[in-house]
């Protein structure tokens, strides 16, 4: 089997998402130290830190305090096992990096109407004089082993220390104050009866709200360890960084799935103090083993069994049956099976079957199954595991959803029943959870010993709703309901801001869909004039069948230099045909195109509304503008960047770069370009190139360079912020510097994060609801080390709205927080494919669309002549 060849989009996506997911991070101990069979090392180079799309989300955690790391130290030693690749960290060794721009104004704004919101955070309460004592422990003669250090200190549990202390081998933390500044005790070493002196020296008193920095970092780590203990006391099952309540597990057996409701929690420092953040999460697991699945596939697709298997299994995260670990599957090794041998560390050989028998007492039934190959992650390499692992399918279960399942509407619907929760239910779950925690005898005993409490109430504080924006079209201002933030109806029949007439264009349709096409064309020509757009009759090309080649040939034969646009009507949404058409028109030629699936046109009642949307889209693709909001800044270039993995080439991502060129208090026209880069590579020089061409384009239009540059960067994980700050901002600045001494534009670099765990609810008389679009939160639950705010710009009809987080990493604009917030909100109104607000600033969404088109369909740089149009809409 050609294992190197990726199997289309399914795989790309699976890798991109699944690897990045939190499941990945569950390589934790608590499990025995045995290593799985280790075949000879593949060549693997270590790469610089990656900043790219979701694909490398896993990078994470640089500088982000990892709840549980402390606990890990403990468990490791507790299990009495050698350090097998897990990182041991002493308490207090990680502090959150400061990411505030150097000249940051107050991050709290004042604009808008105040409103009370409730958020998914719980305060940690203590007595007013509470503090945590930190002691330093010395052994004489010195003891190296952490396990032995712990054991010896443990001898004094009853007599001196009490049950509740934390000891990482060096530092001892407890709420109890030892009378003497230095205390000496003695322990006996069992092996030789030697008397060991233990010196306990008080070194610090850590107080809550002593300000950011080391004390806070230590407290947070201690709190997290305690919290994790509490969670396991109430019987929550840990998977990665999430805790799941297996008692509430729901089986969806008809799909062979199980859904575990759970919580993702972290205690961190926020502007409002140290708090517990808590969000609902669901784990989806398959019930059957990978081998079962492979058998099923072999029955289903006999011809290309290997290919079909790879498609499903590669990229998935599997969980092994004998320990608590998860591994990403990178390949299937069809040449090996459980009776193949591998070399052990001591040089001897052993078969996999014997290994599992000897190590776990597991008998492998099927000796002919292939093996799954899992490459070490960067973290593994750091920890010393540099070789790929081979896993036995019979002993693996898949976590998460297969693409096939994901695309199955029925399955998704059945799952959504359990996973989509309204704001009210969500808040109730949080409060129930914390009550269960506080109500547990063991937990409350432990917490009381430590002198701490979790508040029973979610935090409640004031936020602001930004004023409603005005949407301007050519000669109308659109009105809409603030809580819906949608103006499709209001815009009906009103001319767009500016429009391009369609005079020379092609319509390609197979003979089966001829009638549908004719009626759609009529509808289009009827709806367009009121929108301010004239659409002449196209050259209709009727083709005899719907083969991809027939379409391509028809387009090629009829394409001439003056064709403005090609519309193609296809019989279904087959991806290869779509890709081929887009490639022909976006890469080989430079003609905007519109592909429509005939089924969309079948419902007569819908045709008019569909065609209205098509007309708006056509206009934008041709270079027209649908509407605008006022951007109160002159000569400003707004840049959006997002990344998407390339489905055709493993490990490659596409960066979409979109820069507004309107300049004049608007953000309606764009210059766009893409670059390819490897997942393990930074966008390093490519940003410079893209930004440079954007500036050229701007100069070409306005005869001058922009005075302000606002960059919105999407597709970055929380943990990657420091790298982005370090590398990407520098690239923008270096381009500017090269343009000469006197060019000093004001630059703002903002990272936009869609995946956040914060949730906000607004209470009404009897219910909790999603806050209105335009709600901005800039204190209490924001991060003291950053200039950040949360903005809810979109309106959702089902479930709980996810706010979008904005992190301003660099800023020389001198704009106050208010302006930053309003600007971001305004930009969320500017996405032309949706007559309403979206969850990110429009340039980011455009960049995403562009990266998606290139990553999924084109796999090549689009034609340069298209750069000034929104052809990728």
């Amino acid at each position: 089997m050609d294992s190197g060849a990726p199997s289309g989009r399914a795989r790309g996506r699976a890798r991109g998402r699944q690897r990045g997911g939190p499941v990945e991070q569950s390589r934790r101990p608590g499990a025995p130290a045995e290593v799985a069979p280790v075949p000879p090392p593949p060549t693997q180079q270590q790469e610089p830190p990656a900043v790219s799309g979701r694909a490398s989300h896993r990078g994470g955690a640089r500088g982000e305090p990892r709840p549980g790391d402390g606990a890990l130290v403990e468990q490791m030693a507790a299990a009495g096992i050698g350090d097998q690749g897990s990182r041991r960290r002493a308490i207090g060794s990680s502090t959150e990096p400061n990411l505030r721009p150097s000249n940051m104004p107050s991050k709290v704004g004042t604009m808008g109407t105040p409103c009370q919101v409730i958020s998914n955070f719980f305060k940690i309460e203590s007595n007013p004089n509470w503090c945590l004592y930190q002691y330093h422990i010395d052994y004489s003669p010195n003891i190296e082993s952490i396990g032995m250090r712990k054991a010896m200190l443990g001898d004094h549990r009853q007599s001196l220390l009490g049950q509740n202390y934390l000891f990482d081998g060096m530092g001892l933390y407890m709420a109890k104050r030892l009378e003497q500044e230095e205390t000496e005790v003695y322990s006996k070493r069992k092996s030789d009866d030697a008397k060991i002196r233990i010196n306990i020296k008080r070194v610090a008193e850590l107080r809550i709200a002593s300000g950011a920095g080391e004390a806070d970092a230590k407290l947070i780590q201690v709190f997290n360890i305690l919290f994790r203990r509490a969670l396991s006391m109430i019987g929550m099952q840990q998977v990665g960084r999430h805790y799941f309540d297996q008692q509430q597990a729901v089986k969806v057996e008809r799909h062979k799935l199980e859904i575990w409701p759970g919580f993702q929690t972290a205690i961190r420092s926020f502007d409002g103090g140290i708090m517990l953040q808590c969000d609902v999460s669901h784990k989806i697991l398959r019930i059957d083993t990978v081998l079962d699945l492979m058998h099923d596939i072999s029955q289903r697709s006999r011809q290309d069994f290997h290919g079909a298997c790879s498609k499903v299994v590669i990229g998935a995260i599997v969980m092994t049956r004998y320990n608590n670990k998860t591994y990403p599957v990178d390949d299937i090794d069809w040449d090996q099976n459980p009776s193949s041998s591998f070399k052990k560390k001591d040089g001897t050989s052993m078969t996999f079957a014997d290994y599992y028998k000897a190590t776990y007492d597991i008998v492998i039934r099927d000796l002919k199954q292939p093996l799954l190959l899992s490459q070490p992650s960067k973290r593994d390499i750091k920890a010393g595991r540099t070789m790929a692992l081979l896993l036995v399918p019979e002993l693996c279960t898949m976590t998460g959803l297969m693409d096939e399942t994901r695309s199955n509407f029925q399955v998704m619907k059945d799952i959504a029943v359990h996973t989509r929760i309204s704001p009210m239910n969500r808040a109730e779950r949080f409060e129930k959870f914390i009550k269960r925690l506080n109500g547990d005898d063991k937990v409350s005993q432990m917490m009381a010993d430590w002198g701490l409490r979790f508040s029973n109430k979610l935090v409640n504080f004031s936020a602001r709703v930004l004023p409603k924006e005005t949407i301007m079209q050519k000669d109308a201002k659109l009105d809409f309901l603030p809580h819906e933030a949608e103006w499709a109806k209001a815009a009906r029949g009103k001319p767009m801001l500016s429009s391009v007439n369609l005079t020379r264009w092609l319509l390609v349709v197979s003979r089966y869909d001829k009638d549908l096409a004719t009626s759609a064309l009529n509808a289009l020509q009827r709806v367009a004039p009121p929108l301010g757009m004239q659409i002449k009759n196209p050259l209709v090309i009727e083709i005899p069948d719907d083969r991809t080649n027939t379409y391509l040939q028809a387009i090629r034969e009829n394409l001439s230099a003056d064709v403005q646009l090609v519309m193609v009507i296809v019989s279904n949404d087959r991806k290869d045909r779509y890709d081929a058409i887009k490639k022909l028109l976006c890469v080989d030629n430079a003609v905007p195109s519109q592909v429509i699936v005939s089924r969309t046109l079948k419902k007569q009642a819908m045709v008019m509304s569909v065609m209205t949307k098509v007309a708006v889209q056509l206009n934008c693709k041709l270079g027209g503008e649908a509407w605008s909001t006022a951007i109160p800044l002159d000569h400003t270039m707004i840049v959006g960047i997002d990344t998407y993995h390339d489905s055709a080439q493993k490990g490659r991502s596409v960066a979409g770069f979109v820069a507004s060129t309107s300049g004049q208090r608007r953000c309606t026209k764009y210059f766009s370009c893409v670059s390819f880069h490897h997942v393990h590579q930074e966008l390093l020089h490519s940003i410079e190139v893209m930004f440079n061409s954007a500036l050229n384009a701007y100069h070409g239009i306005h005869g001058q360079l922009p005075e302000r540059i606002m960059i919105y960067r999407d597709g970055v994980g929380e943990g990657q912020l420091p790298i982005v700050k370090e590398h990407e901002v520098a690239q923008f600045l270096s381009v500017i510097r090269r343009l000469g001494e006197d060019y000093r534009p004001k630059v703002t670099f903002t990272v936009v994060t869609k995946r956040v765990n914060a949730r906000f609810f607004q209470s009404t008389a009897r219910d909790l609801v999603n806050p209105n679009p335009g709600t901005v939160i800039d204190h209490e639950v924001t991060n003291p080390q950053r200039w950040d705010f949360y903005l809810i710009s979109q309106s959702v009809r089902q479930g709980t709205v996810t706010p979008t987080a904005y992190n301003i990493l660099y800023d020389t604009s001198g704009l106050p927080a208010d302006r930053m917030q309003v600007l971001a909100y305004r930009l969320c109104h500017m996405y032309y494919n949706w007559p309403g607000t979206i969850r990110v600033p429009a340039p980011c969404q455009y960049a995403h669309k562009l990266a998606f088109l290139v990553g999924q369909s084109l796999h090549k740089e689009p034609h340069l002549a298209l750069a000034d149009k929104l052809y990728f809409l």
Partner: protein
Amino acid sequence: MASSEQVKKQLEQLTQCTKEEERYDGPKFSPPLYVQRYQQVCEEIKGCGLEIKQIADFGCAECKLLQRLKYLRGVQRLVGVDIDRNLVDWNQNRLKPILSDFIHRRETPLCVQLFCGSVVEYDQRLANMDAITLVELIEHLHVETLAALPNMIFQQLQPSLVIVTTPNKDYNVLFKDLKGMRHWDHKFEWTRQEFQNWCNVIAAKFSYLVRYSGVGDPPPGSESVGRCTQIAVFVKNKQQLRKSLMIESRPYELIASFDYPYEPKPHWETQLLLEMQYYVCFLCKQYEIERQQLEADEGSGGEVTACVKIPLKKLLLFPKISKHCRDVEELRKFILSTKQWVLDGKGCSILITLDTIQESHFFDNGFHVGNGCEENTGTDDAFLTSGNNLPLPEEEELWT
């Protein structure tokens, strides 16, 4: 921090009571001797012919034997006892149910308990054990404790099966650099003769049958020294019924207790129904893939067939279905009884109308016509936090 090598060594000294034989320059065992020991103990329990539901392991230390015992069929209660509280406390995680225990649930319950206590103290919570194992324990006991042990195990607790292992002193000549005993804490090491004498007395006194085996074969030429570890297996004489002691006594400290999730097997009809639902859906997807391939090669011909046929024969190819139904006839009967599917005229295939498939197909690319695009606007869907993110479907109304 010390190098991991150093740490390992010291840790070994501290907690090691299982692997001492590997440390001396002598014959090497593969798998390691302690693993062979555990395997042998498991084999003895499996092969004893008695119904063993409750097992106690005295001197459970790192709990590795218990970890294996939990996979034995029919076991419902496992108890580990050790005198070293810290050691058990640290190792209790080994016995915690792991994730896969929650997914592949047992069919019978299992409770694992760990106690701190001495082998010569009676605790009523151990009264009903079917089997007791003493693996590499007796050689760590002081004379007086050792003397009290037989009475406790064989008289008071009286399990049907007792397994005792201990080092074979005869074998020690093969460890070249071994001086004295194999472990610093060993109070004695016995030759085969000494061990068997001790066992024979016990067996006679308490009416048990004893036989001997061992693990760790000596290298060729040294067969006379016997195996590295000697094992005695005691089986209670059947005539003798257990006299239950009515002593109220709970001296042991409970350190941990784990209840494993379990779930009795559902009725076969329920199972089959679920399997059927799954495989029908699974095969429909295949139909779609094939249709697309066909179209790619030949074009769709404009019309799409109105329904999909899934031959019963094809369903029977899946072992999980054929397990319950031997032939087409049986499967047909079952399908008719469920009233969930429609069969074709001959009764050889299930018919699935296209609407059902198309609906799913329709959403394949997030093709939402007319209705708002929730995903675009960022509805919270739980997949975003489940670790597997639902791709934001193409949010717009049309493929561009």
